[in-house]
């Protein structure tokens, strides 16, 4: 057996490189900076570009330009920087620009606590764009996830031509951890589908498809990109039929595929009355409780979500089917709890959150379950 020692941020960086990421731009911010530090070492020698932007707006802007010119691109920040990304995120959604955005969450609101963990941006990632169209958000639990989910994030960004978030947390990002690099289950790499049409329309979708084919800006065929409401040709349009079709497609291309990337781990015990649902670093404490309760002969079930958005509704309903009680644990004041209640209206759904910079401990979970 052989193991490496790495923090979550380094694993994100190596995962990005392995995915074919060749452009990164970011602005220094704790606890995301070590992603930039690592990529600055590894991307340029691999023929890519790593930039430090003058601010977050610029950093993501560079990425949008580079992505449209054909490079797989990524940026990384924390809550305060994500706030500044917002306008450009809306652009990436509406104009279908593939991009991976890492949000290493820290305790908010506002500048909050730079070196304290939280999962306080879970709804912000989903809704922090004008227009409210769907995005994809993946949440790692450990260093191995940071590597592998970053690879999935690139694949999804390319496949669906949309921004994909990694919802990391200071507690994963800056915690070093051992992992066996040979044991990682890496996905095959997916690239955006390149058009070979004679007449190219940048936002036209083929029969039966929901995602337009791609050509890079700067190639032989002329490509238009625009943040304005556009038709297939990339020119501004006022035709409400075209607009409505386009908005529906942006929603459907993500929502209709949700089942195909509902990453998760589940431990369902037949005799268990209670199902714990959690994600991110809190899943680690929950897993310890699951193990402990099983040993004690008082089993609980556990569902660890690694795809937060679009909400894997079917998965959650299926896993909760036999449970009488569902308990949600998360490092915020109940952001995902609301989603679970919405999906499971006929179950008793309870919640414990913590937002003071400290982890939810196994003891807290056990006490909350009333099994202490």
């Amino acid at each position, binding site marked *: 057996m052989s193991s490496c020692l790495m923090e979550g941020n380094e694993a994100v960086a190596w995962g990005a490189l392995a995915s074919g990421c060749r452009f990164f731009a970011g602005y220094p911010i704790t606890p995301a900076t070590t992603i930039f530090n690592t990529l600055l070492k590894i991307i340029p*020698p691999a023929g890519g570009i790593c930039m430090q932007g003058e601010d977050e707006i610029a950093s993501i*802007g560079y990425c949008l*330009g580079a992505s449209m010119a054909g490079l797989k691109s990524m940026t990384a920040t924390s809550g305060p920087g994500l706030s500044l990304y917002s306008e450009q995120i809306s652009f990436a959604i509406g104009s279908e620009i593939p991009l991976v955005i890492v949000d290493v969450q820290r305790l908010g609101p506002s500048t909050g606590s730079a070196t304290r963990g939280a999962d306080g941006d879970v709804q912000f990632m989903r809704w922090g764009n004008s227009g409210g169209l769907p995005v994809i958000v993946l949440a790692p639990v450990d260093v191995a996830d940071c590597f592998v989910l970053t690879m999935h994030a690139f694949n999804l960004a390319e496949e669906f031509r949309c921004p994909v978030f990694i919802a990391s947390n200071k507690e994963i990002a800056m915690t070093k951890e051992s992992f066996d690099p040979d044991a990682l289950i890496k996905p095959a790499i997916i690239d955006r589908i390149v058009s070979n049409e004679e007449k190219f329309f940048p936002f036209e979708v083929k029969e039966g498809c929901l995602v337009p084919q791609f050509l890079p800006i700067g190639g032989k065929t002329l490509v238009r990109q*625009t943040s304005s409401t556009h038709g297939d040709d990339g020119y501004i349009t006022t035709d409400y039929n075209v607009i409505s079709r386009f908005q529906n497609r942006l929603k459907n291309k993500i929502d209709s595929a949700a089942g195909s990337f509902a990453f998760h781990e589940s431990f369902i015990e037949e005799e268990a009355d209670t199902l714990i649902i959690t994600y991110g670093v809190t899943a680690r404490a929950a897993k310890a409780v699951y193990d402990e309760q099983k040993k004690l002969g008082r089993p609980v079930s556990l569902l660890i979500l690694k795809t937060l958005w679009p909400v894997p509704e079917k998965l959650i309903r299926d896993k909760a089917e036999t449970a009488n009680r569902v308990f949600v644990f998360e490092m915020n004041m109940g952001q995902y709890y609301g989603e679970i209640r919405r999906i499971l209206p006929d179950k008793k759904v309870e919640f414990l959150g913590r937002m003071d910079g400290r982890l939810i401990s196994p003891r807290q979970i056990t006490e909350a379950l009333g099994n202490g």
Partner: protein
Amino acid sequence: MDSLLNTGRPPVFCPGCSHERVAKALDKALSNMGLTGDKVVIVSDIGCSGLFDTFFNTHAFHGLHGRALTYAAGIKLAKPDLNVIVTMGDGGIGIGGAHLLAACRRNLNLTLLILNNFNFGMTGGQFSVTTPQEAQVGSAFLNRLEKPLDVCSLARSAGAPYVSRCSSYRNDLPDEIEQAVRFEGFSLIDMWGICPGRYTKRNKLTPQIIDESLAGNEPFTGVIKENLRKEYGLHYREIVSGLKKVSPPAGINAEYAPPEPGRREVVILGSAGQRIITSGDILCTAGLTAGLKVTQKNDYNITVLRGPSISEIILSPEDIGFSGIEKPSVIIALAHEGVDRRKYLFGNLDENTLIIRIKGIDIPDTQATVFDIDLKEQGFKIQDWALASLAVMARLNKVISFDMLNAAIKHVFKDKILESALNLVNRAELKKRD
């Protein structure tokens, strides 16, 4: 060469708008250069200047207000051979000020055409960063209170190597634009123009008045000698072409057996400058040499040279779920700053926790087993106490063995530092202080 104007989408500016002249001059410049549409991208943002990309049969990228330079930079770095033309209005220059400064300092080969008509045309003639204080604009009296910006002087002081200021009514405007596009580096033309839709409704401005005011301003005619230097992209590629590929960190093989079974938690409480984090790394690496799973969390102030420095390490033969520390096996107390930050730990301990305490460090009341040691007397410098304490811990066969420690040091250090580190841990004695 043929015109690159898109005949299907002729300019739609208000009659008499100077933007139309600039669009035609740009087309002339590009065709004089013999450029085909696929060799050019026009990057625009918001405002009437933001319509530019639609008039041309070139690549096009239209984005958010004031951010055109950011997209342009990404495109140019990805496609160095493309001619990247950026159009922005005086509004975009204001909101995107940070990007203008960055573009000037960076000197990436982009051409910025500023369509400066002294107001926000599209939104109703509000004042911009270039509106004269005496002008009558859509922001009532507010422009009287703010001094207009001299974009060209700003660009020069920010390091732009090519800055030109001219009237949009110049007859040789195509040549002016061509020179800027041909320049190998960041070039900017501040083109003064007229917005009949808004500005000249209440202000008198004619091509002649523009010429007169330009004559009264410091001239900018292109190359700024003191700012001439290597183009950014070229320079970037030059530097990175010499870099060696970096391989991912190699795995560490399990060779030893840990001295104790089960999960072990260690907390090193020190202060800045005591090499606490490095010692944490070594302890984790020692764990790897015994095939253990490990986690390491560090805690220090953002002012890195002062205050507490703490490393929390877990070693376990099982997967480490919860990575918080509740009942440490060992606490190493090296400085009061670290002890103070974690003082809540001490009250809950029992005799199963070992505290390695350096002489002179006070700790809160505790039931834990305390092992006192005087590293100063043994001749250790304060920055070596953390590593020496690991040696003490290993000598006691707590958490790691001495073999594991030695092996870890060999993984983490090289050459001279390796030698002195091995020396150091061999010197550390178990001698208790009196």
